[in-house]
């Protein structure tokens, strides 16, 4: 039993770096075959080559660039605002028992509300434009950062806090030299999550607060006009952006936390 996978691996002999590409390539081949051999007559099935043409057209005409720029700008603005406010709020929540007692219960209740349940309220208050979207994205980024910052600060080892007492650190020194660095793995995890949530919410916002430009709006256009090639192209772009953001965050995280040794691997 145990030697079967090894045997199989040897027979297939796919280089390690390429193994992750097997499934996507197989799907594309299947897709191409489905169109080429006419397995389905549905207008929903478009040829890969048509998606390719659409991609080229979108890129050359600059439509992709302007849609993506609009989406990314909102994404990063919302991410920056939400995670900054979240960092401050989470730190305060972690440091002050009084603050935690006062606002903690409200926060923990509010965080249970599904993110999308905020949409009606946000659209009433801020309309359907960029402001409303950025507010929504900030909210998406806010919660994971607050939670992870709070938990990271609460989990700072008492042992290390004793060392800071022995070395006569002031409160400020203890905060910046001990508490924040000790909590940093958790804080980074929160920021990383916030980056992913914000991007997912960017698409959500463009779907639910329909107005203006954005990669989500491009896809809505495609759907409404039955341009499946455009929809599929949008899916690929959204996936690629998400993957890239995650990759960048993973590398920054691994670099900043390299003092943790092998325990932290790049994503």
């Amino acid at each position: 039993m145990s030697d079967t996978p090894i045997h199989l691996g040897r027979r297939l002999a796919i280089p390690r770096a390429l193994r992750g590409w097997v499934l996507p390539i197989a799907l594309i081949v299947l897709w191409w075959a489905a169109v080429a051999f006419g397995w389905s007559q549905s207008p929903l099935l478009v040829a890969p080559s048509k998606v390719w043409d659409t991609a080229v057209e979108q890129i050359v005409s600059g439509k992709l660039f302007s849609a993506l720029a609009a989406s990314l700008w909102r994404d990063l603005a919302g991410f920056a605002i939400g995670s900054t406010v979240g960092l401050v709020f989470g730190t305060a929540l972690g440091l002050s028992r009084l603050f935690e007692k006062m606002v903690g219960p409200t926060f923990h209740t509010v965080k249970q509300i599904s993110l999308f349940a905020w949409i009606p309220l946000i659209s009433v208050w801020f309309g359907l434009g960029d402001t409303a979207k950025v507010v929504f994205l900030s909210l998406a980024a806010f919660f994971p950062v607050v939670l992870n910052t709070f938990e990271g600060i609460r989990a700072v080892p008492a042992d290390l806090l004793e060392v800071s007492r022995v070395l006569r650190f002031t409160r400020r020194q203890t905060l910046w030299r001990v508490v924040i660095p000790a909590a940093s793995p958790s804080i980074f995890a929160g920021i990383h999550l916030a980056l992913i949530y914000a991007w997912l919410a960017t698409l959500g916002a463009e779907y639910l607060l329909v107005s203006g430009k954005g990669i989500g709006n491009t896809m809505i256009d495609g759907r409404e006009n039955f341009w499946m090639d455009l929809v599929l192209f949008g899916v690929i772009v959204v996936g690629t952006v998400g993957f890239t953001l995650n990759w960048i965050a993973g590398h920054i995280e691994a670099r900043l936390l390299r003092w943790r040794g092998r325990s932290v691997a790049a994503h």
Partner: protein
Amino acid sequence: MAHTGTLDISHLSKQYDVKGAALPVLEDITLTIQPGEFVSVVGTSGCGKSTLLRLIVGLEDDYRGEILLDGKRVVGTSLQRGIVFQEHRLFPWLTVEQNISLALLNSGLSEGDQFRTVQSHIDLVGLNGFEHAYPYQLSGGMSQRVAIARALVTRPDILLLDEPFGALDALTRAYLQQELHRIWEAEGITMILVTHDVEEAVYLGERVVVMEPRPGRIRRIVPVDLAHPRERSAPAFSRIRDTVLREFGDKPAAAAAPPLAPEVPVVTDHVPLAFQFAI
């Protein structure tokens, strides 16, 4: 080096409240330690020997009696009193050099002086070449050397050692004991070593304070009049070690009884669970 630092402990008692009941940990400890002396404190777990160190270093307050350093009552921590814990407690995000430097944050030394002091202490503990290593890259023994350097870099009058080699393997432990002795001679400061290893206590101490548990009291103080380097297999050494061991054997019931009051609640009760601002 002319270090001051006579430590005068008189009628020191300490108790904790465990679930509303008073639990005496230390009772009527009286001990005077001369500047530059090396004193070992041995006892079974639960005899309050770690609490004694925590009181001297100033991590615990709320005691009866007196702890005087050069005639002044000990209140809170001070750079005059350094401590090495059983765990190295290095900051994992800082390199060896940065860990040691951080101890000088409030020393008032110029940057140049700080650098030189840190370098000389890296030399002292024999860690040249490891300045830029992170704690995860160090062995247990090396980490403890860094912890010793960090505790010494502020030039304290007293260095307290709370079972510093307890978690190390026998070979590393023997080697570091030798190193600690060398450092003690080089620095000429007072050292108080808490340990449950009788041989270690006799090897390093000029006096061995034997404590008994529940509540923690001094049972006997055994002087060690042996020249250095001490030979663990020498008859004179064995005699003193046996004398100390006999103090434990005298009360077999107490020594064999399971610890009724382990040191655990002591720690959980009094170490703040998280760093807080009183806002």
